[in-house]
């Protein structure tokens, strides 16, 4: 086993909660705490810069919650979630995180989590998580709850796009391009994963590669024999497939 110390970051907005982790970690000689963060923005920035092996991540925090942080930092570090109470979140943890700790936790429970993290970190290469980080955020939200915002990272800068300001989304290979108020943002997520996070009453998948905000659609015009184009209020034209057209009309009639 390599004896490089494990570099850990603690993320929690409550000073006392960070203190418990610090105290417990002080007894682990192979783990070095390289940073502490009190909010989601800081966490994304610090984790991006310092590339830690292990992150203790609180769920409820200012700026970005734990799931949003996870979406933005990707699956590189081993993540141990720390939370007080969140039924849906706990289900989601099972599928992705190394472990999760419920506040308040015992020393034994903490040791188990750290041991799991060690095994994961020392295993040859990062294990492929069973669930994509973006899908995890969807699962953690619980049934019938849709995202009210989307977080995007560009370098060290984090942008929050409220869904009501999202005009349309286009798929670009493994990325999605989000269009909001004449600006566009690239995010590493599949279009299907994003589609399932958005409220189907407001957003419709009009094409294999395109999701549109229903309120932005001005009109639908025929294009070829089998396809149509959606013209948005700002004049943007988007392709509409046959099944996309069916979904669009179903939604418009349902809303009407």
């Amino acid at each position, binding site marked *: 086993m390599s004896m490089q110390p494990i570099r850990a970051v603690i993320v929690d*907005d*409550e*000073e*006392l*909660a960070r*203190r*418990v982790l610090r*105290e417990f970690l002080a007894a682990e000689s192979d783990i070095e705490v390289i940073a502490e963060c*009190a*909010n*989601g*923005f800081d966490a994304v920035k610090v984790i991006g810069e310092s590339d830690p092996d292990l992150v203790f991540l609180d769920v*409820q925090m*200012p*700026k*970005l*919650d734990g799931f*949003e942080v996870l979406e933005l930092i990707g699956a590189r570090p081993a993540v141990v979630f720390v939370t*007080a*109470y*969140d039924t*849906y979140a706990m289900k989601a943890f099972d599928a992705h995180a190394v472990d999760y700790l*419920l*506040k*308040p936790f015992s020393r034994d429970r903490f040791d188990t989590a750290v041991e799991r993290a060690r095994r994961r970190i020392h295993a040859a290469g990062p294990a492929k998580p069973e669930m994509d980080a973006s899908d995890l955020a969807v699962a953690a*939200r*619980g049934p019938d*709850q849709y995202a*009210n*915002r989307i977080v995007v990272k560009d370098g060290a800068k984090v942008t*929050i796009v409220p869904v009501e300001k999202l005009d349309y989304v286009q798929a670009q290979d493994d990325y999605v391009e989000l269009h909001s108020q004449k600006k566009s943002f690239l995010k590493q997520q599949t279009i299907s994963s994003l589609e399932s996070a958005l409220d189907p009453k407001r957003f419709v998948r009009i094409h294999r590669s395109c999701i549109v905000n229903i309120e932005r659609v001005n009109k639908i015009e025929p294009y070829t024999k089998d396809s149509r184009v959606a013209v948005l209020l700002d004049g943007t034209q988007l392709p509409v497939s046959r099944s996309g057209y069916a979904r669009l009309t179903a939604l418009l009639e349902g809303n009407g």
Partner: protein
Amino acid sequence: MAIYLAVWLIPAIAGCLIVFGDNIPWFDSLLLAIGLSLPYAVVCLTPWYLCRMLPLRDEHLLKALLNHLAAAFISSVAWTTAVRFVTPQRLHQHLVLLFGTGVLLYLLSVAMHYVYFAVEDSKEAVLREQKAETLAREAELKALKAQINPHFLFNCLHSISALTTVDPPQAREMCIRLSDFLRNTLRLGEKELIPFAEELSLVNTYLAVEQVRFGSRLNVVRDVDAACERCGVPPLLLQPLIENSVKHGIAGLVEGGTIRLHASCSGQMLRIIVENDFDPDSPAPRKSGLGLNNVRNRIATRHGDRGRLDVTVTESSHRVELLIPCESLGRQERKDEYATDSRSHRG
């Protein structure tokens, strides 16, 4: 139905015996008696509707009696007339007896129907009572769950867990504050009306607990008119508002923020304002708005148009204004106010 028809065999057999006395072969007389009884058995089911429409109440007693007598008379006349046409002449001497029996049987059926309805009603009443009790208990449980938010509780316990090594006296202090808060929530939740002073003291205990969690991030500015403290208010109206302003406001602010609590009375109305800073960029807590709706519903149920709850949201502040009547307290509560020590003994 089978039982009902079986019971009808009794008058049928009696009739059969009477007819048998007139030298008619026993098999024929039995056939005749059952043949005559069966249609009337069906006729005697009709009081079902009359009994339903005319429940036995003091004010309707005479009306019900007259109605049933008339119905009995008509039914029996119809029966007797029908029988007259289908039976041989020599049996007509029994028609008067038949008519009398018809009336009595009909009235008997009416009585049975009333007994049956009474039994059903009492069964239903028991069920209704059980259901109401279950509903009340569910509501109570829901209210308790809503009052003691598990998130708050577990976070507090985690803070205590942290303090046990770094600051044991503070850990003990936190245990005591948390216990006070829980005890008072349970105690006040049971009452219908409490002095506003008690609600304020509960809120202060709550804020003292949160202060340990949030430290300097949580600032509170109080501006409470002492005259309001004697107002009677429903318990746990203000507490959820303060809890919301911590959960949705202060908890989302990196540098923390301020909660401003204002209370004043004018005329017979109590005005409470809770205002807090919030960060529009912070993620909304997963479960939100429940507490506010609960308060709104309770005001609407208790005060109707006389109570109001208005929410104003600006760029970075959230303001809830509550306007409710300042109710007068019962004698018991007023006595407590003067006997200042009594409060501590009651917990």
